[in-house]
C-alpha cells in the first residue's frame, strides 16, 4: 500500500504537466464549437428546408454516433486524404502532423452539434414580446440577433452549456487514443512503461476530479455574473 502510494506521488508531476494540454483542448474546442453552434441553431430554426434539413441531419449525426468514431473518422480519414493534396503545401501542414489539431477538429464539430441543439431550444424560448419590441424599434434582423435573441438565449441555456463544457473536458480524454499526451494519454504511457495498472489511472482520476471541480466553480461564478440582475441562482 505504502509502495503504491509512493509510486503515485512520484508520477504526479508528470501527470500534472499534462493538465495544460487537456485544458487547451477543452478551451479551444469549446470556443470553436460554441461559435459554430450559433449558425447550426439558426439554420435549424429557419423555415427554409435547404437550411433546416442539413442542420437537423448534422445534429442527428453528431448526437447519434459515438464521439470516438467521429474522432477516428477525422484523424484516420483526413490522414488518408490530406497527404498529397494541396493542403500539404500550405502553412497548415506542420500543424496537421499532430493529433492535437485533429482532436480539436473532432471535438469542435461534436460540441457544435450538442450545443446547437441546446441553443435552438433556448432561442425559441426567448419571449416573443421582446423580439416584437426589437422589430418595432426598427432593428435589422442581424442587430436583433446580436442585441436581443442571442444574449437572452445564452442566459436561458447557460446551465446546460456549462454542463456541456464539463462533458467536453471529460471527453478530451479520448484524444489519448489518437496519440495526444493529455492527462489520460500520459497515464496510459506510464502504465506501459511501468507495468502498473491501477496507480497511473487512480492518480489521473484524482487530477481529473480536481480539474472538474475547479471548472464547475468557475462556470458557476460566470453564471452568477451573467445573470446577476436576476434572482441569485440556488447554489449547488
Amino acid at each position, binding site marked *: 500500500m505504502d509502495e503504491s502510494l509512493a509510486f503515485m506521488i512520484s508520477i504526479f508531476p508528470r501527470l500534472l504537466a499534462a493538465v495544460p494540454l487537456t485544458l487547451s483542448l477543452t478551451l479551444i474546442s469549446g470556443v470553436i464549437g460554441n461559435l459554430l453552434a450559433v449558425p447550426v441553431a439558426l439554420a435549424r430554426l429557419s423555415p427554409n428546408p435547404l437550411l433546416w434539413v442539413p442542420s437537423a441531419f448534422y445534429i*442527428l*449525426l453528431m448526437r*447519434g*454516433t*459515438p*464521439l*470516438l*468514431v*467521429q474522432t*477516428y*473518422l477525422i484523424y*484516420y*480519414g*483526413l*490522414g*488518408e*486524404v490530406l497527404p498529397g493534396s494541396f493542403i500539404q503545401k500550405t502553412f497548415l501542414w506542420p500543424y496537421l502532423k499532430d493529433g492535437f489539431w485533429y482532436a480539436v477538429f473532432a471535438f469542435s464539430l461534436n460540441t457544435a452539434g450538442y450545443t446547437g441543439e441546446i441553443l435552438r431550444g433556448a432561442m425559441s424560448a426567448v419571449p416573443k414580446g421582446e423580439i416584437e419590441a426589437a422589430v418595432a424599434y426598427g432593428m435589422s434582423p442581424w442587430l436583433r440577433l446580436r442585441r436581443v435573441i442571442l444574449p437572452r438565449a445564452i442566459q436561458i441555456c447557460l446551465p446546460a452549456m456549462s454542463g456541456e463544457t464539463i462533458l467536453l473536458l*471529460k*471527453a*478530451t*480524454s*479520448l484524444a*489519448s*487514443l489518437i496519440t495526444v499526451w493529455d492527462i*489520460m494519454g500520459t*497515464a496510459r504511457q506510464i502504465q506501459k512503461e511501468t507495468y502498473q*495498472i*491501477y496507480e497511473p*489511472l*487512480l492518480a*489521473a*482520476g484524482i487530477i*481529473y*476530479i480536481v480539474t*472538474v*471541480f475547479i471548472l464547475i466553480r468557475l462556470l458557476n461564478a460566470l453564471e452568477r455574473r451573467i445573470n446577476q440582475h436576476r434572482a441569485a441562482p440556488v447554489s449547488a
Partner: protein
Amino acid sequence: MDASPSLLSLMSFSQDGWGARFIEGVAVTLQVSLAAYALSLVFGLLGASAKLSPFRALRWIADAYTTLVRALPELLLLLLVFFSGADAIKFLLSFLGDDYADVEVDPFAAAVIALGFIGGAYMTEVMRGAILSIPIGQIEAAKACGMSPLLRVRRIILPQMLRFALPGMSNLWLNATKDSSLISVLGSFQDILFMGYRAASTTKHYSFFYSMTALFFLAVTLASMAIIRLIEARVNRGYK
C-alpha cells in the same frame, strides 16, 4: 471517388465481406449495451433509494458514487473498473472457497460491470428525480391503505415513476449504445467500432470504413428512437 464500386463490394454481406462482420459487430454492441443498461437500472434503483433514504451513511455513499462517476472521464472509469472489477470478483469468490481462487473472469462480464457502474450513476439521478415527482399524496394514501413498503414500491412508486423517468432513461439508453464503443479499446470485443478499425487498417480505406462505422451506430440510434417513441406512447396512454 471513382473507386466507389470496389469500395461497396468490400461491404458485401456475403460470408467474408465486411458487411457481414459489421452485422456481427452490431450484435456485440447491442449485447453489451443491453446488459450494461440492465445493470445500470439496478445500480440506479439502489442509488436513488439510498439518496432518498433516512440514513445519512447511505445518502453519503450514494452522493460519493454519483459525484465521483460523473466527474471522471468514461474511458478512465472503464479501464479502472474493467481491470479492478475482475480482481474484485476474484477476491469475493475467494471467500467461497479455494476452488474459486483462480477463476478466469469473463471480459464480457467485466466490461458490462464497468459500463453498468458508470451508467448507474446517471440513472440514480434520473430515478431520484422521478421518485420525487410522484405526488406525495399518493404515497400517503398508499400508507393509509396499510400497504407494506414493498407493496407500495411495487404498486404505486414503480409504475408512477416510470412515466417521469422515461425521457431520462431513453437518453441513457442512447448513451449506453454510444459509450459501449469504448470497449473496442479493450481489445477483447468485436463490436461495431472494432470491426471498423479492423476493416480500415486491413484495407487502408480509412475514411470509407469509419463512415460505415458511423452509419451503423446511427442505425442503432434511429432504431432505438423509433422503439422509444412506441414505449413512450404506451406509458403515457392514460395522459393527454
